[in-house]
């Protein structure tokens, strides 16, 4: 079974190739079903292959497919262990639901087949990333998901904002990839191989603390780019220009968690670099609070979710940075469930409202779309951290772990707690603004129920968001045991023992969630004027949040504008006069010489004859004078 695990990658890849050539002919909805079937089959296959891990009956194994660059230990090999299996299941499982949803969402799009080509290509790339058995293959997947992200953000490229957003995502990701690549080079120079097995086994003997810290920080740069952490998070909110299923799949559930996965995967290196780990945690906590505060004031339904995703990714970084890797992966999983659900629900709402995304123009949708409203309500409670929903368990485990660590991490714990409060506030605000209150729809908008291809995935995700957290509770830590073999020999931070402390910490975070959620409910349940006055009253802070601290302007002035200037100088100041100048100058030189010499050719025979004669006289005279 394990030897055939490559099929998990091959199926969506094959479907992508088929759809690339036949997508238009298959048409709608057949190409969508083909794509969904391919990734669904991958999910079933991965599930069967992963089952032996659950009862601890199987060891991690590496499957060598074929050699690629043997000299640097880079081949196509698949690492099949509990961690990659879990990631595969999340990617294929949530991915399948999103594929099915997209069949309804992309209805009547002129490039229906092409959309599913990209989705399947993305699935194959993401699976390459999580199943990679060495850094080179990991990097291959890492770049491929970046490419798919670019293609899908810019899917509606006839909108200038979409193509600009795609470009921005690509460029910002390249900054991160730069750090990632240097990290890989550093790994190679130290270890002489890029294979996971080789690197992680020798890490304690080979790496000094300094080198480990350098590699860890460079990996963090890469992870911060991919996973939208401060200061490289700016591309993710813009990425909402893509179709909503893309936001759910790539920019919430899977690709953006790649950074968390990489840090968990390289735990053996971070184990030797406490400074790098602490930096990861700090970046995560800062991001969590920063993005949550921006999410408070957003009006666009997808922007709220985008900043929320950035914030929740911050939680995951906080977890893996506190060396609570299991908690980070756990939150990654639960977040995939409820954030995918939120995005798909938002997609259903946008679809029903004729592409309206402004929450000020929604309201009262619960009666019109009960399934979407209730499932999104469950997701809202889950992300806010209300027990016993999924988000409660994973978030509480992260907070408890950072509390347990103490010292500097206590500060991060407080930051996390405040973020939990803000999270509850903005999510409740969103739900109330969209589903409760008086309708504030534009003229002619008639919200309609979503078709069942969109409804069923919502319900399944709602169930997962509700019960998904039960796989790892303080009472029954199944996930912890499941992942144990992956982090063997690495000092792990476990959530605190003892039911008393658990109740205190859980009580604290639930209290924060209730305060935030309650405040939002009280505020936004009131008539429109009342909550608008509330938002007015918080000026200018509210405006700053709404404009996302004007970070884009700042980057525009400090980085983009000088970059443009530099490009201009090198193009028009250096390239044109110096490089082009040299080439054109040589041509001009010969042209000039030719021009000067032209008059010699008078076209009069007698001139040539005279010259001939003169030449003959000179030669003869020279010979007579005893030349030679």
């Amino acid at each position: 079974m394990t030897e055939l695990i490559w099929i998990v990658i091959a199926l969506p890849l094959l479907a992508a190739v088929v759809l690339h050539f036949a997508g238009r002919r298959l048409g709608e909805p057949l190409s969508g079903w083909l794509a969904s079937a391919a990734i669904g089959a991958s999910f079933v296959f991965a599930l069967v292959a992963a089952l032996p891990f659950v009862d601890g009956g199987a060891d991690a194994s590496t499957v060598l497919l074929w050699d690629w660059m043997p000299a640097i230990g880079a081949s196509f090999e698949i690492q099949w262990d509990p961690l990659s299996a879990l990631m595969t299941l999340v990617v294929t499982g949530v991915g399948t639901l999103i594929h099915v949803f997209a069949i309804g969402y992309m209805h009547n799009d002129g490039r229906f087949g092409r959309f599913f080509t990209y989705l399947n290509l993305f699935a194959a790339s993401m699976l390459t990333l999580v199943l990679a058995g060495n850094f080179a293959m990991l990097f291959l997947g890492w770049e491929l998901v970046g490419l798919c992200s670019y293609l899908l953000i810019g899917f509606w490229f006839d909108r200038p904002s979409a193509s600009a957003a795609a470009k921005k995502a690509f460029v910002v990701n390249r900054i991160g990839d730069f750090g990632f690549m240097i990290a890989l080079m550093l790994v190679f120079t130290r270890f002489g191989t890029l294979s996971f097995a080789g690197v992680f086994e020798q890490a304690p003997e080979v790496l000094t603390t300094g080198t480990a810290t350098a590699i860890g920080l460079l990996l963090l740069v890469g992870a911060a780019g991919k996973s939208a952490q401060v200061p490289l998070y700016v591309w993710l909110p813009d990425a909402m220009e893509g179709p909503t299923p893309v936001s759910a799949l790539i920019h919430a559930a899977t690709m953006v968690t790649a950074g968390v996965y990489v840090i968990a995967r390289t735990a053996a290196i971070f184990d030797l670099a406490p400074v790098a780990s602490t930096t990861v945690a700090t970046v995560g906590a800062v991001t969590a609070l920063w993005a949550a505060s921006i999410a408070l004031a957003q009006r666009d339904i997808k922007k709220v979710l985008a900043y929320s995703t950035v914030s929740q990714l911050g939680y995951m970084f906080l977890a893996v940075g506190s060396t609570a890797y299991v908690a980070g992966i756990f939150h990654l999983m639960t977040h995939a469930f409820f954030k995918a659900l939120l995005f798909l629900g938002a997609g259903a709402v946008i679809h029903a409202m004729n592409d309206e995304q402004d929450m000020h123009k929604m309201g009262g949708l619960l009666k019109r779309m009960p399934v979407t409203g209730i499932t999104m309500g469950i997701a809202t409670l889950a992300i806010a951290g209300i027990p016993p929903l999924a988000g409660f368990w994973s978030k509480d485990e992260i907070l408890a772990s950072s509390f347990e660590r103490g010292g500097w991490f206590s500060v991060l714990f407080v930051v996390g707690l405040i973020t939990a409060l803000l999270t509850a506030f903005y999510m409740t605000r969103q739900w109330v603004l969209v589903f409760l209150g008086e309708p504030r729809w534009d003229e002619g908008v008639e919200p309609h129920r979503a078709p069942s291809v969109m409804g069923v995935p919502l319900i399944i995700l709602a169930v997962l968001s509700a019960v998904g957290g039960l796989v790892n509770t303080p009472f029954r830590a199944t996930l912890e045991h499941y992942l144990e073999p992956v982090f063997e020999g690495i000092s792990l931070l476990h959530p605190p023992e003892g039911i008393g402390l658990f109740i205190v910490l859980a009580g604290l975070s639930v209290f924060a969630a209730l305060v935030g959620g309650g405040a939002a409910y009280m505020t936004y349940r009131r008539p429109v004027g009342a909550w608008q006055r509330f938002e007015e009253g918080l000026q200018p802070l509210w405006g700053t949040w709404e404009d996302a601290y004007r970070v884009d302007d700042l980057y525009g002035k400090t980085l983009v504008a000088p970059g443009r200037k530099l490009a201009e100088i090198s193009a028009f100041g250096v390239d044109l006069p110096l490089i082009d100048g040299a080439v054109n100058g040589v041509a001009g030189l010969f042209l000039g010489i030719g021009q000067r010499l032209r008059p010699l050719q008078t076209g009069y025979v007698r001139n040539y004859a005279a010259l001939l004669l003169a030449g003959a006289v000179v030669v003869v005279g020279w010979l007579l004078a005893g030349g030679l």
Partner: protein
Amino acid sequence: MVEPGLYMTVAAVLFFIGALGMLVRRNALVMFMCIELMLNAVNLTLISAGRAMNDLNGQVAVFFILVVAAAEVVVGLAIIVAIFRRRSTASVDELNEMRG
């Protein structure tokens, strides 16, 4: 027996007349005749030098030159006639397409 130097002088004068005609005349036919003049001045030089040195090679060379010159005259005249037919003039100043 005349001094070979005198023959040489005559040859030099002939050559000079030819060269001068070449430089001052415009008619292609006349210029062609000037060239023939210079050619035969050289022939005269060869013959007299051969005689002076008691060597037949100079005179043999002249026969060769005469034969080749006959062929050359045929080609040259044909070209001039062709040009005249086309342009109704044989002035070389009109033929200045190669001017830079």
